[in-house]
């Protein structure tokens, strides 16, 4: 799987270490949230980091899938795997529909369209109190056991749920890695870098943007289902633009255009907000300051921070990278497929 690329293998091992170590460092509930939002952040990274489209409405798919799965579990007592599949499908279909409209426009219009759709679905969820519970959210969601053939593993305790979330996260991560390593990965990046030339060499740019948007919707929906089962409630916030903003936050803090950036971003964001919120009620102020600093001084996010730290401490054989001076350090997935 990593033939001949020690860097990639090392990173994957570190990820496994993190998955094991995380619940020791933070509460299992927070640790689960980190991996759940990592999936959503990876999804946004596929659109924003790889394909160059900043969507400010990912919560639409996160929330829709959460509500759908919540309702299925409450009313039909649907089993776990069915619910996960349904949520992913809902995320994908919603993203396909919303995406088809949004990709007709680019730049600011695209951002505002995704934001507009998010608000529309938010207000629908807000007012359709009979189904979504409106402002109070949808409470009373059970956590169905993991039924694998004869065995049925209960996920009631937060530690067991963490293990389950970590495993499905790894599956999602592997799936995203295959997408990014597949020709789609390079095609998406070519569209990010230069849509006109991407068309000139033969790619229907809108079609591929649509694929990226829909794939991301599927992953985001998947994360939404996991979120609904965690607290046993789908809060109205799960479809509000606040969650969309958080996901963008995570991708940016972590560093866009690279598979591990969003994970770092999600971990930093969730851990930071958990640790500080207990200490100080005005914790979003610190997140705001962090975002401003990152945007002004560290646009590559944590990924770049590590590269710089590593560079400062004698970065081994790596030669000075010629593009140090380039203001935008969008760390593209650097492994040349040699």
């Amino acid at each position, binding site marked *: 799987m990593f033939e001949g690329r020690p860097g990639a293998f090392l990173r994957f091992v570190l990820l496994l270490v993190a998955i094991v170590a995380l619940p020791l460092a933070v509460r299992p509930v927070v640790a689960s949230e980190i991996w759940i939002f990592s999936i959503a952040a990876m999804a946004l990274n596929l659109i924003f980091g790889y394909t160059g489209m900043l969507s400010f409405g990912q919560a639409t798919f996160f929330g829709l899938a959460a509500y759908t799965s919540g309702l299925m579990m409450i009313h039909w007592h649907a089993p776990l795997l069915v619910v996960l599949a349904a949520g992913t499908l809902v995320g994908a279909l919603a993203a396909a529909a919303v995406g088809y409209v949004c990709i007709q426009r680019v730049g600011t219009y695209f951002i505002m369209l995704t934001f507009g759709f998010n608000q529309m679905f938010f207000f629908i969820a807000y007012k359709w109190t009979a189904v979504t519970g409106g402002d109070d959210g949808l409470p009373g969601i059970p956590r169905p056991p993991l039924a694998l053939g004869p065995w049925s593993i209960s996920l009631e305790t937060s530690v067991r749920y963490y293990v389950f979330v970590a495993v499905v996260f790894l599956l999602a991560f592997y799936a995203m890695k295959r997408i990014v390593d597949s020709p789609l990965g*390079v*095609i998406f990046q070519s569209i990010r870098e230069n849509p006109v030339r991407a*068309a000139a060499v*033969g790619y229907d*740019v809108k079609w591929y943007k649509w694929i990226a948007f829909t794939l991301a919707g599927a992953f985001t929906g998947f994360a939404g289902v996991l979120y609904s089962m965690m607290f046993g409630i789908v809060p109205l916030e799960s479809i509000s633009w606040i969650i969309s903003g958080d996901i963008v936050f995570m991708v940016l803090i972590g560093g866009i*255009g690279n598979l591990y950036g969003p994970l770092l971003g999600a971990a930093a964001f969730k851990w930071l907000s958990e640790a500080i919120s207990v200490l100080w009620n005005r914790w979003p102020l610190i997140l705001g300051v962090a975002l401003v600093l990152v945007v002004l001084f560290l646009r590559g996010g944590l990924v770049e921070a590590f590269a710089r730290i590593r560079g400062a401490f004698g970065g081994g054989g790596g030669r000075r990278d010629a593009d140090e001076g380039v203001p935008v350090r969008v760390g593209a997935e650097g492994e*040349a497929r040699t």
Partner: protein
Amino acid sequence: MTEEAILRTEGLTCDFGALRAVNGVSLSVTPGTLHSVIGPNGSGKTTLFNLISGELRPTGGRVYLEGRDVTGVASHDLPHLGLARCFQRTNVFPKLTTYDNVWVAAFSRHTPGALGFLKRASDFASVDAEARRILDAVGLAHKVAAPAETLSHGQQRALEVGVTLASSPRLVLLDEPTQGLAPEATQHMTRLVQSLVGRYTILLIEHKMRIVMSISNRISVMAFGELIAEGTADEVRDNRDVQRAYLGTRR
């Protein structure tokens, strides 16, 4: 019926509001030849290219590629019909490595089918080989892992041509490949363009007369959006209209 011209335009016209940038241009290019289009600045050469390559939608006239009417076809379909173009201002993928720049263009012609997308990009040996062959041809083999934005201007022009060739076209539109190059790099680029003749049909826009006259089989001259003369290098050199167009006296 085998059309003898690989590319034919009939009365091609393009208006930008009141300005008629291209006016009724009818041009045909014989397969396997190097056909140049020259003319003073603002004569509509690049606009003509943009009309042929689908970047701009013509307001009148038709474009035929290998006998097929491709007028107004989306620019992303043309590479699959055998036409590829390179741009006057370097228009590559800055953050992608040189290898990926060429690889992504080569891959677009490769039809992997749905499942193909699940395979790893490095599993496509044929595309990899094609990309390496082109990188060698344009002299960038040693710059494989470097991001395109870190290349020198000359290297980027070479990459521009490389990316164009990677779509394995039959007709190549080259828009001033030597633009802004130092003399030594210009010679290198001219040799490169000449090496393409025979394997591809080339439609070239070029300002440097010495190059155009030496390597073109056929030359079309444009002025104020119209085709004012066409012929071999000698016929065009002696043509009074061409001289007047270049010396700036109105016809």
